[in-house]
C-alpha cells in the first residue's frame, strides 16, 4: 500500500494512494474513506514525524568516479535537518549568487521499529517502506570540514521527499531498481540501485551499531552519476522503479522566502 500525507482544507490528512490514482487522480482519506482530488491538496512529507535523516555520499560506484573520488571503504554518512523536507510538487529554491546546484535522486529506506545492534540478516525487518528523495547539493558551499557540511546539505526545502511511502513488501527486491531524473522533460540521470556500494541491510547494521534507530528515521541511500545544474523555472522529476516519481519546481531564493527574503 502507498501512504501519503497531504494538506486538505487547512488540515493535515493521512491518505492512501490506490492503484486507480493514475487514472482518477483521487486519494483516499484514511479517516473516513472519502475520495479527494489531488488538485485540492498540497503534498507533504510522507513520514509524519521525521526522525534522524541519514544520507549517503559517494554511495554509487559510478557517481564516485564522476566526482573523481575513490569509492569509500566505509560509508560516508551525513545528517540532514527536517527543515530540508518538503513534499511532492512543491518548490525548492536555488540560492542567489551560486554557480552549481544539482539534484540527487535517492531511494529512501524508512525505519519502522526501534532497534540497536541489528544484524544484516534481520535488517529488513526494521524497514517499514520506501520513498524517493531529491537530496539537492550546492557545490559552491562545500568546505572540507564535516564535508558535506550543513550549509550544503541542510537548507530549507532542499530535500523534497515523496510522493508517498510504499510498504516494504510491495516493492520486494530493492537490489536492481532503475533510477531516473528528468529536468524539463529531458533525461539527465539514469542508474540502478545495483550500483549501490553499501546497501540497505549493511547500512542498518552499520548505523545501529553506533546508535539506536527509531521509527521515522530515514536512510537516503545516495545517487548515481548524472549531475546537472538547476535554475529557477526548472521542473525536476526523480523516479525510482516500483517506488514513485517525485516532482519538484525550482524557484529563486526571493520567490521561495517571499516576505522573509
Amino acid at each position: 500500500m502507498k501512504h501519503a500525507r497531504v494538506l486538505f482544507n487547512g488540515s493535515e490528512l493521512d491518505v492512501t494512494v490506490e492503484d486507480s490514482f493514475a487514472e482518477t487522480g483521487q486519494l483516499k482519506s484514511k479517516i473516513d474513506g472519502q475520495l479527494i482530488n489531488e488538485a485540492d491538496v498540497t503534498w507533504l512529507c510522507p513520514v509524519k514525524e521525521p526522525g534522524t535523516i541519514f544520507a549517503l555520499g559517494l554511495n554509487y560506484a559510478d557517481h564516485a568516479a564522476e566526482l573523481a573520488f575513490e569509492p569509500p571503504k566505509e560509508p560516508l554518512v551525513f545528517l540532514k535537518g527536517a527543515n530540508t523536507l518538503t513534499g511532492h510538487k512543491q518548490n525548492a529554491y536555488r540560492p542567489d549568487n551560486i554557480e552549481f546546484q544539482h539534484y540527487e535522486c535517492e531511494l529512501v529506506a524508512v525505519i519502522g521499529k526501534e532497534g540497536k545492534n541489528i544484524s544484516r540478516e534481520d535488517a529488513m525487518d526494521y524497514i517499514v517502506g520506501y520513498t524517493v528523495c531529491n537530496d539537492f547539493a550546492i557545490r559552491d558551499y562545500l568546505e572540507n570540514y564535516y564535508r558535506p557540511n550543513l550549509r550544503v546539505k541542510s537548507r530549507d526545502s532542499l530535500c523534497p521527499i515523496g510522493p508517498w511511502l510504499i510498504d516494504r513488501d510491495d516493492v520486494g527486491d530493492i537490489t536492481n531498481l532503475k533510477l531516473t531524473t528528468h529536468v524539463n522533460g529531458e533525461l539527465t540521470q539514469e542508474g540502478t540501485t545495483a550500483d549501490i556500494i553499501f546497501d540497505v541491510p549493511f547500512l542498518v547494521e552499520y548505523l545501529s551499531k553506533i546508535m539506536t534507530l527509531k521509527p521515522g528515521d530515514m536512510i537516503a541511500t545516495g545517487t548515481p552519476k548524472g549531475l546537472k545544474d538547476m535554475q529557477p523555472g526548472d521542473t525536476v522529476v526523480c523516479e525510482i522503479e516500483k517506488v514513485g516519481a517525485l516532482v519538484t519546481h525550482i524557484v529563486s531564493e526571493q520567490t521561495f522566502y517571499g516576505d522573509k527574503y
Partner: protein
Amino acid sequence: MSKNPIVKGKLVCVALNDAEQFNAMQAEFAEAPYKGAPQQPVLYFKPHNTWSTDGAVVEWAQVDGSPAEQMVVGASLAVVFGKECCRVSETEALDYVEGYTLVHDFSLVEQNYYRPDIKGKCLDTSAPIGADVVAVADPQALTVVTSVNGTVVNETPVSQLVRGVAELISTISYIMTLQPGDVIAVGFPGQRATVAPGDKVHSVIDGVTELNNTLGQ
C-alpha cells in the same frame, strides 16, 4: 533513553569555535585534507537518540561491540529558540531567543574534522541538555566552567569564541529556519576533557544554570 523536554526539533552544534583552538590549528588547516581554514561556522547535528537530561547517566560508548577506550566531553552555552527564526540580522538575532541553557557533548576522541563524525558524535544519550531555560541580557558575558569529579577541567568565556552568539544565530538562520524548541550549542572548548566510566561531569554558568551527568559503566 531519556527524552529531553526542551529540545524539540534540531540540536545544532558549532565546532572549532574556540579561538585558542582555532588559532592553534592554523597550520593544520592549511594542509590536506582541509586546504584552508574554515570560512563558515563548522556545524554538526546531535540527533534525537543523543538527547538526554540533567542528572542522567550517559551510556559508555561501545565501539564494534567493545567498550570505547576513551570518551571526551565538552560543555557549551546553548541557545533555545522561542519563536521561528528565519533569515534574521545579527542585530535582531537575540530577540528570537527564549533563553539559555547548557549542553554537554559526549563523544569519542575527535580524530579530525574532515568528514561528519557520525561514529564519534551520534552515541545514544550523549547530548544532555539542561533543565532550565534562563533569560540573559548579554550572553557574551557568560562563562562556562566544567569539572570532572570536582576538578575544573575547562573554563570558557563566551567572549572568547571565534563567532559570537548573535552572529551564529544570524548565519545559521540563513541556512535553515529555526523553530521554537530548536537549540544551538554555540561553542565547545577546543581541549575536550577525557572522562572514564563512572566519572561525574558538572558544568555551570554562574548565576544562570548548571548541568550534571554521570558516565555509565
